[in-house]
């Protein structure tokens, strides 16, 4: 089976890749967003913790 | 007997108090002190069961009030910042509704009586909307005259009241304590008692939790 044949999916290419592609996109984006949020939270929390230590 | 065990309350991000413990016996009055935002109102609402404390418990005769549920409410009269009366109803209507809900049978005449004692003669059947702030407060406080509950929790009961009303309320509170009732209140007024005991509790600046 050639690549173009594989992508063509017997005429269903748009629908199959539309489904799998969007699913993949979401399932890759979500962990990235979660990771970003973790970095932002860590930054904020460590700034607060450092501020408190300076106060003390 | 009311017992506060190791109570902690958090509002938003702020821990207002923690490890708070004291008890109140019949015939005692607890005067809560503390600067604005020190958690007086929160403490009172937690004792009523309106706020769920983050730790510790409030006990009534040795049982957690969470377990007592509505039974505890029978023992309790709470006057908060907000008057808890309907502007579109008259004083008498307000008073009678609140008594029915509290499970006390009060005749129309008795309700009129209570309002008259609060100095509302002639305004009993006016919609509360037309009354002044102080008069609304009096309508709200009239409940105390009809209530049989032993524990009164009064959050700034004297606000908006004039001198005469303050004096009258002071005697009402005094006689309640002397009849072996319990009162917890926040106020800037002094309430002097002839019998019974006044406890003071400072929230905030000083070390928490000591009576």
């Amino acid at each position, binding site marked *: 089976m050639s690549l173009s044949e594989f992508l063509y999916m017997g005429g269903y290419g748009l629908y199959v890749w539309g489904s799998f592609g969007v699913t993949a996109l979401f399932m890759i984006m979500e962990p990235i967003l979660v990771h970003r949020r973790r970095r932002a939270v860590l930054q904020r929390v460590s700034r607060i913790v450092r501020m408190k230590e300076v106060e003390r | 007997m009311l017992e506060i065990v190791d109570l902690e309350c958090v509002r938003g991000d702020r821990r207002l108090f923690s490890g708070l413990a004291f008890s109140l016996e019949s015939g005692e009055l607890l005067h809560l002190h503390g600067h604005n935002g020190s958690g007086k109102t929160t403490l009172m*609402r937690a004792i*009523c*069961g*309106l*706020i*769920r404390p983050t730790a510790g418990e409030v006990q009534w005769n040795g049982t957690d009030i969470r377990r007592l549920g*509505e*039974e505890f*409410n*029978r023992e*309790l009269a*709470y006057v*908060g*910042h*907000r*008057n*808890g*009366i*309907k*502007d*579109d*109803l008259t004083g008498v*209507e307000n008073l009678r*509704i*609140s008594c*029915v*809900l*509290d*499970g006390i049978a009060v005749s129309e005449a008795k309700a009129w009586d209570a309002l008259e004692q609060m100095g509302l003669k002639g305004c009993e059947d006016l*919609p509360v909307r037309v009354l002044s702030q102080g008069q609304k407060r009096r309508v709200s406080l009239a409940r105390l005259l009809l209530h049989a509950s032993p524990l009164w929790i009064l959050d700034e009961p004297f606000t908006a009241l004039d001198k005469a009303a303050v004096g009258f309320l002071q005697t009402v509170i005094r006689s309640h304590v002397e009849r072996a009732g319990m009162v917890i209140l926040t106020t800037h007024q002094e309430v002097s008692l002839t019998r019974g005991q006044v406890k003071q509790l400072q929230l905030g600046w000083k070390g928490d939790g000591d009576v």
Partner: protein
Amino acid sequence: MFEAFLIIVRRDITLAMRRRSDLFTTLFFFVIVVSLFPLGIGPEMNTLRLIAPGVVWVAALLASMLALERLFAADFEDGTLEQMLLVPQPLSLLVLGKVTAHWLVTGLPLAIVAPLLGLQYDLSPEALGVLVVSLLLGTPALSLIGAIGAALTLGLRGGGVLVSLLVLPLCIPVLIFGAGAVEANVSGLGEQGHLSMLGALLVLSLLFSPLAASAALRISAE
């Protein structure tokens, strides 16, 4: 205990009667929405007869959402709700009282004017009867389910929109069986099954929603 329930119902009805303008807002909203559809769709009677049950029911659903926001808000603002949480009565009973009064002043009028609106859509007298019965069974369920949403969103910014967002999906079964009953009657299939399902939904929501709403109220009033 029953006395407490009755006094809440009477209190809320008295209050509604003293603020009559609020009362009519819901009703007029309902009337206007239903009357707008023919203008949007065209006066073709066959089409209108077909969509009538759905239109009336969706309008009733939206109208009851409109009134929900005020269900607990007024009591919350003046502190009477706080007092209700502190009386020696089961809170769910008081909530049931409030919902009953709310239904009597907002839901019941919808059921009463619905036949008039049904006439605009050329529904048969029999279908009109079914419409009224379905609304009589369905709108109390809507008020009950809505009470949960109203209690959850009490005192929040933008509570009015939020309450619709929370409650509308939960009301879908009521909508389906309510509109379905009228439709079944129009198409000659018999409305019995739908009406019994509506009744079952009403009983279920009578059992559960006062409990859920009172739990939500305790959380929101903190």
